[in-house]
């Protein structure tokens, strides 16, 4: 096993454990903090895949903005209300588990038909600027300019909608 594989296994285990804690933690703020840990693990997985830009954006957007807003909203509620005391499972737990296993199995089966599944990635040539390539791909007409613009318009619409909802009519 190479050092990279060992790191990946550790990070993967920590990420999955944190994700499990998100749904089992009794305290809502703790759940949000475990979510931060899980998101951080995903960022490390991105770095292992040589996607440094995605890793940093993951931390900025998901931890710096989304998770903080979660915690913000939870903190506004009363402390006792944020604690869950009821049973953690209902009668349908086996159905949920079955669906999760089926989805995982389906994804694995689907990926096995892909030729790149069992190949090791070729080494990145030295001097390869991933950020530059990503920027060019996102803005060139031959690349992904249309999906990029559509996503931008969608976000703008969400922004306008938020302003409209919060706007205080006189």
């Amino acid at each position: 096993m190479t050092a990279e594989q060992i790191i990946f296994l550790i990070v993967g285990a920590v990420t999955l454990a944190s994700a499990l804690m998100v749904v089992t933690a009794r305290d809502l703020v703790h759940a949000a903090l475990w979510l931060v840990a899980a998101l951080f693990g995903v960022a490390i997985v991105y770095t292992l895949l040589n996607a440094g830009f995605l890793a940093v954006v993951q931390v900025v957007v998901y931890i710096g903005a989304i998770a903080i807003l979660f915690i913000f909203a939870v903190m506004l509620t009363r402390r006792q209300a944020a604690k869950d005391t009821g049973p953690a499972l209902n009668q349908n737990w086996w159905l949920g588990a079955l669906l999760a296993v089926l989805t995982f199995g389906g994804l694995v089966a689907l990926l096995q038909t892909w030729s790149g599944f069992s190949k090791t990635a070729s080494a990145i040539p030295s001097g390869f600027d991933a950020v530059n390539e990503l920027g060019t791909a996102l803005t060139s007409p031959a690349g992904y300019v249309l999906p990029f613009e559509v996503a931008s318009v969608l976000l703008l619409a969400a922004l306008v909608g938020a302003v409209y909802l919060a706007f205080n009519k006189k």
Partner: protein
Amino acid sequence: MNFWNDPLKVAADWLTGVFVGWGMNEIAAHVLVVFLGILVLIIVLMVIDILLVWIERKVVARFQDRIGPNRLGPFGLIQPFADIVKLLIKEDTTPNGADKVVYNLAPMLSMMSVLILWAVVPLAPVMTGVDLNTGLLFIIAAGSIGTLSIIMGGWSSNNKFSVIGAFRQVAVMISFEVPMLAMMLIPTIFAGSMGVNAIIQSQDIWFFWLSPLAAVIFMIAAIAELGRSPFDLSEGESELVSGFNIEYSGMKFGMFYAGELLHAFTFGGFWGILFFGGYRFFGLENVSFIFAILILLVKAMIGYWIIMWVKYTMMRIRIDHMLAFNWKFLTPVAFVLVMVVALMNALLKGAPAWLYVTGMLLANIVVAWVSLEVVRSAGRKERERVEGAQVVEAAHH
């Protein structure tokens, strides 16, 4: 390869050789050497941090027409060490009903979010922790961990004041992150890279001369991000006692305090790096790496001094004023400036250097002037509205 050209690599190679000579695995030796390098950097930073306490106290004393610490050692230089001993022997208290793990984790995260910033700071042309090509985004990402530490400390203390303080601080931080990120895009446009070292290398002319407005907005956003006066509502001694760190005692409080000072110093350094050429000073940085480090330290100190100057001169502003200032003035100006600079950069691409600099400078002055005029006319209208209403009211009575 001699020591004076690339000291880090020579030292690392030598140490790796020693460890391998002791019969260590080559990879393990490499990891150990990198670890030792990080440890040395952190120790140097913490020693600087101790001296920053002294500098801060001396400077604030001068601003307030006092002498400051002057009893222990020459110029009171031993005072900060006495402070540390005091902090260490204080009782370590945990409030009733506190969330212990989160409570103890928060000061560590706060310190970590500052120290991690130095991973991307180039101390000299060849002395960089990691030369990330996303260096500027990394700074913002580290800042979001700092925000998290404040919210954790404020919430877990089980104290109303600390929660309110944390709320305010987070509100400040997530709002001022926006103009700060926009202002980081401007050196990125000039340098064509987000890497910190590439930005320094392309500053044959300081970026301050290309875009002084960006430097000013960056400084304002940095002061807000640090939670220093006039944006220190999270501490607000007169209303919140001490804000998010109210329940912390001893060295845990010391971690927050030291983290804040080092953060201010670090942002002074980033100001120098982004707009004043970092370690570069008329080719002096190529003579020896010692000069380069000294130049960077001097620039960081100047930035830090400006932050202190603002802190001890300005009054605290109210939270709604702070938010309005950010969202209605700073953010729009920052976005307009980014657009104008990008457009001018595209227009002046092939132009000679003098034309490029003059054009950029003029564009900046125009943006600053127009935005100030807009604010002034809006202010005048608002004043007329309020005063007009008062006149009408007075007529009714």
